[in-house]
C-alpha cells in the first residue's frame, strides 16, 4: 500500500496542475497529483500543442505553394491529412510523456482516476469502481474546462465537431462552418482554410477575435477574407439540420434576416465552461459562480485548505495564466516570502492563425474607457526590412501608452511571428518601464522586433521608417 498522506494534493495535471505540483515538490512539500486521463491536460493533448502542430503543416504547405516567389520550383504538393494528424498526435504524446517524467523526477506521487473532495482535508480517487482515499493539508483543484455547448447545436462527433474531433479530422471538409471566432475557432478556421476547405466563420459579435483591439480585428478580417474565408459577423446560428451527408445551418443576422447554407462539417467553438461538477464541492464553503470557482488573489476558495487555479476559476482561459496561478498559490502555501498576486493586465494572449495575433494589456478602446489620456503608436510590417526579406509584408504592431505617465498600457500585434514578439512588451509591462526605457532599448537589426521599437517611437512622434 503506497503512502496516502500528503502536504498537497493537486487534482488535474494540466498546465496549472502539473506546474503547481512540481513547484510544490521543489519547495519540499510532499505532493501528489490526481489525473483521470492524460498528463498535460487539454493544453498538451487536445488544445494548445496539437493545434500548433496542425498549423505548422498549414504554414509549410502555404510556403510551398508560394515557393516560386522564393525561387524554388515545386510540383504537385498536397496535404496528407492522415499523416498530418498523426504528427500532431505524436507531438502531444511526446510532451505528455515528458510531463510524466518531470513528475517522477520531482518525486510527485501520481494517482490515476477521478479525484474529488471527500470531507475536510480528504480527497477520494475513483478508478474502475475502486476508491483510494488521500489525506492532505492542502488541495488544489485544477480540473480545467471543456467546450461550451449551445442547446440544439450540440456536437455529435460526426458532422458537428468540438475541438476534440476537429483535432483528429477524418476528412478535409469541402465546406466547413466554424461557429465562434475566438482563438479556438479562428485557429481551426485558418488551418482548414489553408489546407483547402471552403471556410465560413460565424461570430455573434460585430467583429472577429472580439477580445482583441478593434484595429487588429479589422486587419485580421481583411486578411481572412483575402485568403478566401467567408465571415458572417453579428450573426447567430439558430439551427443545424443534419442529413445523410451534410448539415444545413440557419443563420440570423443582426437585422433578423434568416438565411441557410449547407456544410460538410461544423466546428463549434463558442467558449468554454469550467469543470466544476463531481468535485465534491457540496457542503463545502467553495463558491461556484455559474461555471467557475470563485477564488481570491492567491487562488484560495472559501474553504480553508482548498484552492482552485486555471480555467476552472474563469477567464482568461490561458495555459500560462494557469501555470502562474499554480506557482503563486503553492508559494503562498509554502510560506515563501515576497509572493505577489498575478497582475492579469500583464498576461499576453496569442492566436496562431495566419496572420498570427498577439496582445497584452488594454486595447486602445479599453484604455480610453478607463480614463487614460492615450498616445498610440503603429508600425506596419511593410516598413520592416526583415519582414520584406521573409516575404511577410502584411501586419501591424500597435502600442498604447498613457500620455502623461508614459505607462505602457497595451500592445497589439498581427503578422508573422508576433506570438514570439509579444513577450518583449510583457517584460516591459511587468517591469513598469515607460516609453523612455523602451526607446533607449537597442533592438537588433534586422529583426521583426524593430517594429516594436518603431511603434513606441511612433506613439511619441519619433518614428524613423514611415
Amino acid at each position, binding site marked *: 500500500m503506497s503512502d496516502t498522506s500528503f502536504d498537497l494534493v493537486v487534482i488535474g495535471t494540466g498546465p496549472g496542475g502539473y506546474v503547481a505540483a512540481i513547484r510544490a515538490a521543489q519547495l519540499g512539500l510532499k505532493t501528489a497529483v490526481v489525473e483521470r486521463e492524460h498528463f498535460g491536460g487539454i493544453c498538451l493533448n487536445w488544445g494548445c500543442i496539437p493545434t500548433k502542430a496542425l498549423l505548422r503543416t498549414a504554414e509549410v504547405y502555404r510556403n510551398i505553394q508560394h515557393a516560386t516567389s522564393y525561387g524554388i520550383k515545386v510540383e504537385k504538393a498536397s496535404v496528407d491529412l492522415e499523416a498530418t494528424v498523426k504528427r500532431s498526435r505524436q507531438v502531444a504524446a511526446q510532451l505528455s510523456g515528458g510531463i510524466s517524467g518531470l513528475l517522477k523526477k520531482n518525486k510527485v506521487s501520481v494517482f490515476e482516476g477521478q479525484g474529488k473532495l471527500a470531507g475536510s482535508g480528504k480527497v477520494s480517487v475513483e478508478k474502475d469502481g475502486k476508491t483510494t482515499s488521500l489525506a492532505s493539508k492542502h488541495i488544489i483543484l485544477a480540473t480545467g474546462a471543456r467546450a461550451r455547448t449551445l442547446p440544439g447545436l450540440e456536437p455529435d462527433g460526426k458532422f458537428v465537431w468540438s475541438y476534440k474531433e476537429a483535432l483528429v479530422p477524418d476528412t478535409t471538409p469541402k465546406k466547413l462552418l466554424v461557429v465562434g471566432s475566438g482563438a479556438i475557432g479562428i485557429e481551426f478556421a485558418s488551418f482548414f482554410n489553408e489546407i483547402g476547405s471552403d471556410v465560413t466563420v460565424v461570430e455573434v459579435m460585430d467583429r472577429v477575435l472580439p477580445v482583441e483591439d478593434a484595429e487588429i480585428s479589422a486587419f485580421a478580417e481583411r486578411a481572412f477574407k483575402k485568403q478566401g474565408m467567408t465571415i458572417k459577423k453579428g450573426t447567430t446560428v439558430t439551427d443545424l439540420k443534419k442529413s445523410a451527408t451534410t448539415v444545413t445551418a440557419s443563420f440570423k443576422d443582426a437585422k433578423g434576416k434568416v438565411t441557410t447554407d449547407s456544410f460538410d462539417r461544423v466546428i463549434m467553438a463558442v467558449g468554454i465552461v469550467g469543470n466544476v461538477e463531481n468535485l465534491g464541492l457540496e457542503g463545502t464553503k467553495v463558491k461556484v459562480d455559474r461555471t467557475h470557482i470563485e477564488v481570491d488573489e492567491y487562488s484560495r476558495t472559501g474553504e480553508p485548505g482548498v484552492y482552485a487555479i486555471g480555467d476552472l476559476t474563469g477567464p482568461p482561459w490561458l495555459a500560462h495564466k494557469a501555470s502562474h496561478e499554480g506557482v503563486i498559490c503553492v508559494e503562498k502555501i509554502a510560506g515563501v516570502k515576497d509572493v*505577489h498576486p498575478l497582475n492579469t493586465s500583464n498576461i499576453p494572449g496569442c492566436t496562431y492563425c495566419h496572420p498570427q495575433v498577439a496582445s497584452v494589456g488594454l486595447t486602445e478602446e479599453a484604455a480610453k474607457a478607463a480614463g487614460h489620456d492615450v498616445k498610440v503608436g503603429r508600425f506596419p510590417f511593410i516598413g520592416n526590412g526583415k519582414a520584406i526579406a521573409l516575404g511577410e509584408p502584411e501586419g501591424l504592431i500597435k502600442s498604447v501608452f498613457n500620455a*502623461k*505617465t*508614459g505607462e505602457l498600457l497595451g500592445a497589439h500585434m498581427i503578422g508573422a511571428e508576433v506570438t514570439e514578439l509579444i513577450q518583449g512588451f510583457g517584460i516591459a509591462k511587468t517591469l513598469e518601464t*515607460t516609453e*523612455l526605457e523602451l526607446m533607449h532599448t537597442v533592438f537588433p537589426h534586422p529583426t521583426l522586433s524593430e517594429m516594436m521599437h518603431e511603434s513606441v517611437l511612433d506613439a511619441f512622434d519619433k518614428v524613423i521608417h514611415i
Partner: protein
Amino acid sequence: MPITITMPALSPTMTEGKLANWQVKEGDSVASGDVLAEIETDKATMEVEAVDEGIVGKILVDGGTENVAVNTPIALLLEEGEDASALDTVSAAAPAPAAAPVEETQVAVTPEAPASPAPAAQTAPDGKRVFSSPLARRIAADAGLDIASISGTGPRGRIVKADVEQYIASGGAKAAPTPVTDTGAAATTAPAPAASATPPHAGEHEEIPLNGMRKTIAKRLTEAKQTIPHFYLTIECELDNLLAMRKELNSRSDEYKISVNDFIIRASALALKKLPAANAIWGGDKILQYKDIDISVAVAVDGGLITPVVRGADQKGLAGISNEMKDLAGKAKEGKLMPEEYQGGCFSISNLGMFGIKEFSAVINPPQSAILAVGAGEQRPVVKDGALAMATVMSVTLSCDHRVIDGAVGAELLQYFKGYIEEPLTMML
C-alpha cells in the same frame, strides 16, 4: 541655488488665495520659524513661516495681490553663501522644485490640513540605491514626491506604481518631504521616533516594510500622545429607544439601512452644534472654532485605518448620513478616497462595539481635539425607580484635548450626546 517659496494651499480644496501682506522685505535675514507673509482665504488668515534660514532675495508677488494660484512662486530665499547673482539662475516661471518646503510649512501652521507622512528616514541622500520602477519614478516626480520616502511592495521591496498611487491616496502628496525641509519640519512638529531607539529582540522574525499609511499612523498618533494633553470622560447611554426607532425606520424603506453608528454620527454632530466651543481645534497661539460640523469616522482597512469625513453632519438626515457613510467606507476599503474626503473635521468617532469591546479610550487624531470611543450595546442591569431592571446600554468614552476642551465642556458635550441617543426623537427636530 536659491530656494523658491510658493503659494501654499491652506486647505485641501484651496486653489488660490490672497497674499495679504509680507512681514519681511528683500534683504532681510530670516530664521526657520520666522513669519514671512500672511495669506488670506475665505475662511481664515494664516501665516507662512520660513522653513529654512536665509536672506529674502526677491519678492515675486507683492503684498495685497488677490487670486494667487497655489504653487505660484512668491519669493526667492538665498541660502548661506549665496549672493543676489544666484537669483538669475532661477526662472520665476519655472516649476519650483522647492514647492514642497512651503507646503511643509503649511502643514505646520494650518491645523485643518492634517499632517501627512513625512518619514524622517531618507535613504536617497546617504547614497543608498532606491529600487523603483521607471513608471513609479515618473508618477512620483509628477506628483512632486521624493521616491525615497515611499515604501516598496514589489519584488524585493522594489517601489512600483501601486506603491506611489497608494502613497498619494493616503495623503502623502500633501507633504512631499525633501532633504532640505527636514530640519524645518522637525522644528515645528514632534520629533519622529528614532527607528533604532530600542534594539530589536533577537530570534527569528519577519521584517515587514512600512507602507505610507502605517508611517502616517505611527507619526501622527505618536505626535498626538506626546503633544496633546488627553483626558477621558465615560458615560453610559441606554439604547432601547434608539434600537426600537431604528427598527421602525428600517422597516419602512429599502432605500436605506440605518446603523446604530449612523445615529451616533448624527447625535455627535447635533451635540457639537449645541456646544460650538467643542467644535474647535488647537492653533498654537489661538483656538480655531469651526462653523461647519464635520465628523470623521474611523474605518478599518487592509493594513491600517483611515477616517473619512461626513461633512455638515448636523445638516444631514439619518438616511443621508447612512448612505454617505456606506459610500465612504466602501471607497476607504478600496483605497479610493480623495484627500478632501478624509481631511478636515474636528471630531472623530471610533466604534469597536461590533467586536464586543465594552469600552475603550481612543487616541486623538491630530489636529482634531476630540474622539469618541464607542463600545458595544449590551444588556445590563440598571436601577430604575429604585428597582433592578434590564436595559441595552452602551458606554462611550470621549478623549479630549485639554488645551481646547476643559472637563466641564467635555462633560456637557457628552450629556447632550446621551440626551440625543436616549431620546432619539429629539434628533429628528
